[in-house]
């Protein structure tokens, strides 16, 4: 039973010249295997900071609180150790790694996360099938990682990695942003395929409710001002679609 537990998490980010600024101010969240959680909130509420802090980006400093995965102290782990422990972050803006082919990148990642190199024949088949599922051209595997990718290609590539790496906890940072309807449908199908295995806890971070029509969360959390200010089931997403974040922004500002 994989469980990610976040308790009273405070996170600061280093700013240019102005010293550290606190972004997260006491976040509590529990994600269990097989569950799907959505974190929603206005821009600047701290959603992306939460995802980076869980993955361990060096720019974000945890000043207080804890993150554990099945009881193990995630904050004591390096970025790569967290990945090998089963944490996966699908990035909103994945960077280019020029000259490194997607196929090389995927196989190196799978080798690192699985602890041994996947058997070549099975691996080639697995990659082929998963790319087919995500409606990606096979030639894609020979391109440089994120080099000249369109927004949609970047997101499909992130989901491809998630499907191949089979994480315990998958964090999807604004995966729906910048996608047209077709791409959104394909990417959502990928997320649902991973959910349906029941082996992964999913944390969807999103500004819009659009993706929630395709990927239905059991739990919805509203974030504002660096805290979770409201929680509910999928009906909360419907309410947000109608009324927006206005009332939470006031609450967040007053906190």
């Amino acid at each position, binding site marked *: 039973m994989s469980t990610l537990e976040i308790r009273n998490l405070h996170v600061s980010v280093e700013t240019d010249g102005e010293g550290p600024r606190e972004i997260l101010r006491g976040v509590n969240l529990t994600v269990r295997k097989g569950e799907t959680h959505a974190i929603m909130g206005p821009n600047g509420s701290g959603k992306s900071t939460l995802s980076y802090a869980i993955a361990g980006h060096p720019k974000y400093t945890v000043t207080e609180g804890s993150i554990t995965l099945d009881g193990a102290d995630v904050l004591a782990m390096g970025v*790569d150790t967290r*990945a090998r422990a089963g944490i996966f972050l699908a990035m909103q803006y994945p*960077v*280019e790694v020029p000259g*490194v082919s997607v196929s090389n990148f995927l196989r190196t990642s799978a080798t*690192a996360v699985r602890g041994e190199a996947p058997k070549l024949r099975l691996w080639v088949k697995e990659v082929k099938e998963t790319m087919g599922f995500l409606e990606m051209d096979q030639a894609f595997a020979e391109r440089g990682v994120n080099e000249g990718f369109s927004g949609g290609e970047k997101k499909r590539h992130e989901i491809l990695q998630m499907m191949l*790496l089979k994480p315990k906890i998958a964090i999807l940072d604004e995966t729906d942003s910048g996608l047209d309807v077709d791409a959104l449908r394909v990417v959502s199908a990928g997320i649902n395929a991973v959910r349906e295995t029941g082996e992964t806890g999913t944390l969807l971070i999103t500004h819009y409710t659009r993706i929630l029509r395709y990927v239905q969360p059991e739990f919805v959390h509203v974030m504002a001002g660096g805290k979770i200010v409201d929680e509910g089931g999928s009906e909360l997403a419907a309410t947000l679609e109608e009324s927006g974040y206005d009332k939470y922004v006031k609450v967040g500002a007053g906190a």
Partner: protein
Amino acid sequence: MTTTSAETALEGLGSYRFGWADADAYAADVERGLSEAVVRGISAKKSEPSWMTDLRLKGLKLFERKPMPTWGADLSGIHFDNIKYFVRSTEKQAESWDDLPQDIKDTYDKLGIPEAEKQRLIAGVAAQYESEVVYHKIREDLEEQGVIFLDTDTGLREHPEIFKEYFGSVIPVGDNKFAALNTAVWSGGSFIYVPPGVHVEIPLQAYFRINTENMGQFERTLIIVDEGAYVHYVEGCTAPVYSSDSLHSAVVEIVVKKNARCRYTTIQNWSNNVYNLVTKRAACQEGGTMEWIDGNIGSKVTMKYPAVWLLGEHARGEVLSIAFAGEGQHQDAGAKMVHAAPRTSSQIISKSVARGGGRTSYRGLVQIHEGAHQSKSTVRCDALLVDTISRSDTYPYVDVREDDASIGHEASVSKVGEDQLFYLMSRGMAEDEAMAMIVRGFVEPIARELPMEYALELNRLIELQMEGAVG
């Protein structure tokens, strides 16, 4: 956060992993320092014709007269009086692998040559141990085609008429101080002649290695590719660690005749105290193509600018170069393209990686002479800095005397970004593995031009350099 800085990740680049050294045992040893007697002695030992002795002495005079270069890297650490100018390791060339002395065989086992032989990837091995080629083999099919592939000493003995015509014709004796020095004391190197129309299908390879403290290595290579012929010559070297400075000053002359093509690939990995000052130049006639692929990984200082003189219409020159500079290293490398005929074209692609306070410089010259109408040249140089204490400079010189020339120049300097490292590490890769992947990706456009086993060796060297830095 346990992510360490980029500097620590790359500390491995400073340690030299192939740093073994066999016991010194020389059949013929000579004193340190340079004089007319030393030069005459080298020539006499080799029983050279008098014109070569005279040329050597002329080289000595010009070497003494010419000042040290005042540009480029710092050469003040070279002490010419403390260098052995000729060392002979065995008296006689070996006919086959079995004839080689055991310690020399051990050395080549470490370099992996027998494996390469077994795989029949190489056409002939000119293995240079010390100053003289001791092991040399040419496949029968090459001989049947009339291809000559010898060490330069033997080449001079057996083909004096070719040497008289071409030796020093591309790089004159007084071209520069180090070319003059090489002319005075040269020993070893490769001599290749490819007859008209012959395509040598497999790359010809030579492995080089120097093994004596303070021993200069002055090999001299002469390649003539006759009309419509093709050859790919590959040269690689790994050297042991020395306790004091060592000088390597080679001269490579190439003649590419009408519609011929020559590709010359070098990966050098000298130990970190070697001054590597090499003059490489090709003269390319009508419709000919010269390609230099040049990798500089080791050495303390490298100054090397492979050049192509485009002497006939539609001649084409290309330089692909890659340089790594670690702590205490300066790689001053680049290319020179001289367009002396109409409709000639050239391309320079240079990539460099600096870490640990190392320094890379790109120094290039593109000249379009008067009358070289409609010539084209493109230059692209990219530098990658792995930390904030390393340095990269670009010195592109362009001299154009025709209005209808087309010249392109692009340069970039980039840093290994925190976000790139984070991305790869968030996929489970350790920091040194992630760094090696970024560096490998950066040099990939050049690595893919290398013969397969060299590309693998380059990748392995990059991995070794990134390894074991994260505690």
